[in-house]
């Protein structure tokens, strides 16, 4: 292999390596830029900042001046928690059911459950708004939770399904032949093995709910203001540097949560399939 170092081989290494380096730069660069911008001491978004201060974080954590942001953030957290819990419960049950059958209808159902990943979210958001308003329901956190849960359930289905595939069926057969009931086998054998998969999927679902724009856009109202929609409003009207501070908080939280999930359930291993 090392014998031939032709022009073609070198160009291959340079082109592939160069494009990959560019991909990494484009992937990580913006995150760094936002973190640095959030520490600026000026009232504008100039980059690089002329000096550093925590003034925007102070303004962000001011309970009076940033009351609406706090409210939206707590709404987003509450919705994400309930929606992720619902997705975990419904999604795990469905994954167990799907793993048990190989029929055509089960495969169709699986495709339907995964379709929120592909379907234009904007179309679903509008559909949900009209549906709930025809039912005479006003925008509320409950409806938001239902809409989010549908959108994020594919994440749980995928990781739980993947860990069920790796489950050796002889384990439960073995337990059954040793006289344990199905429930006992599930509780002591299946569940502990697939639990990291469920946890990783639920975590991704939780983050996807926090990040959800289309459903939040259409179902948010005076009682259900959501963080991404409020941030969008702040970006559209006046360029508020507090957006950078919120971004900074989100970046640090994501990093901490990711490290935590990596340590406990091996998150990255489960996501690359």
């Amino acid at each position: 292999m090392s014998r031939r170092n032709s022009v073609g081989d070198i160009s291959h290494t340079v082109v592939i390596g160069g494009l990959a380096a560019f991909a990494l730069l484009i992937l990580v660069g913006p995150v760094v830029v936002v973190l640095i911008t959030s520490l600026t001491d000026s009232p504008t978004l100039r980059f690089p900042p002329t000096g550093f201060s925590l003034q925007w974080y102070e303004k962000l954590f001011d309970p009076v001046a940033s009351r609406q942001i706090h409210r939206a953030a707590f709404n987003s957290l509450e919705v994400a928690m309930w929606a992720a819990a619902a997705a975990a419960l419904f999604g795990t049950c469905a994954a167990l059911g799907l793993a048990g059958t190989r029929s055509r209808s089960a495969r169709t159902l699986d495709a339907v459950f995964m379709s929120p990943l592909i379907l234009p979210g904007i179309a679903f958001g509008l559909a949900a708004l009209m549906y709930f308003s025809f039912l005479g329901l006003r925008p509320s956190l409950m409806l938001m939770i239902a809409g989010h849960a549908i959108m994020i359930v594919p994440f749980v289905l995928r990781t739980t399904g993947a860990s069920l595939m790796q489950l050796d069926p002889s384990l439960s057969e073995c337990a059954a032949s040793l006289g344990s009931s199905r429930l006992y086998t599930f509780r002591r054998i299946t569940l502990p093995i697939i639990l990291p998969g469920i946890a990783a999927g639920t975590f991704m679902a939780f983050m996807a709910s926090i990040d959800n724009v289309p459903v939040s856009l259409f179902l948010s109202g005076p009682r259900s203001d959501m963080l991404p929609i409020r941030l969008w409003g702040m970006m559209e009207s006046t360029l508020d540097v507090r957006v950078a501070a919120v971004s900074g908080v989100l970046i640090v939280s994501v990093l901490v949560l990711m490290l935590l999930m990596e340590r406990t359930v091996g998150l990255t291993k489960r996501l690359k399939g």
Partner: protein
Amino acid sequence: MLRLLTGRGQQWQLMLPLALAFMAFFAAPLFILFGVSAFDDEQITQPGLQTWAGFLGDPFYWRVTGNTLKLGALTVAATVLIGYPLAVVYMRSSPRVQRILIFLIIMPVLLSVVVRTFAWMVILGREGVLNQALLALGLTAAPLRFLQTELGLIISLTQIELPMMVLPLISVMSRIDDSLHDASSALGASSWRTFFRVTVPLSLPGLIAGCTLVFASSTTAFISQSVIGGNRLVYLPLVVWQQSLVVYNWPLASVAAVMLLVSVTLCIAVFMLLGRRSMRYLNV
């Protein structure tokens, strides 16, 4: 619940809760969406196909639909161009470097789209990082305009969607037998030939999955489209939003949403068909 877990051969019933939830909160709303699109007036009292006729008869909406699909296609092309090499480099790295790379690839996925769009506003602005770099390098005399241009939007969407391309690729590539590459080069094939004749055909399923996800997600990326694209660039999601939440013309908004849904789904279906054909052709 207990009986379901303990009963024999009736595991399919475990799908029922989610199936019912999808009926109530997914199928029913989409049904309403199609229904409302078949009304003529904003009060939704007159059934008819006038709204559809108006939409389909207006060249503006055809242009918007075309631009939306074009935006998706260009984003797919850009993510393939830089995502594929990233996946290849990942596969060739040591386990230690792989751990760092996968962390860097997944981290942006978890970060809010709004935050990433905001980052691109800071970078692409008149006095942004990109213009400063270009000015400093002497590549341009005056600041270039990136915000409110298609190029700027594609740059942002490329970063936002890149992980959706790279993750399925890595997932499929890690199942390719390494000895195939060794065999190819031992038999005298150049690196490029091995790449195009071995790596690409074998990773086709990952490529198809990645393209599907990126296309679907970039065509409906409302926040990036409206913040980076501004009001000068109009895409279908903006029409849906404007007509429903600003003008309150629900039938027209529904028509635009159905158009988005149908055109994106059609493109993906055609693409998957071609992908499957080419896989059969390549015999993999």
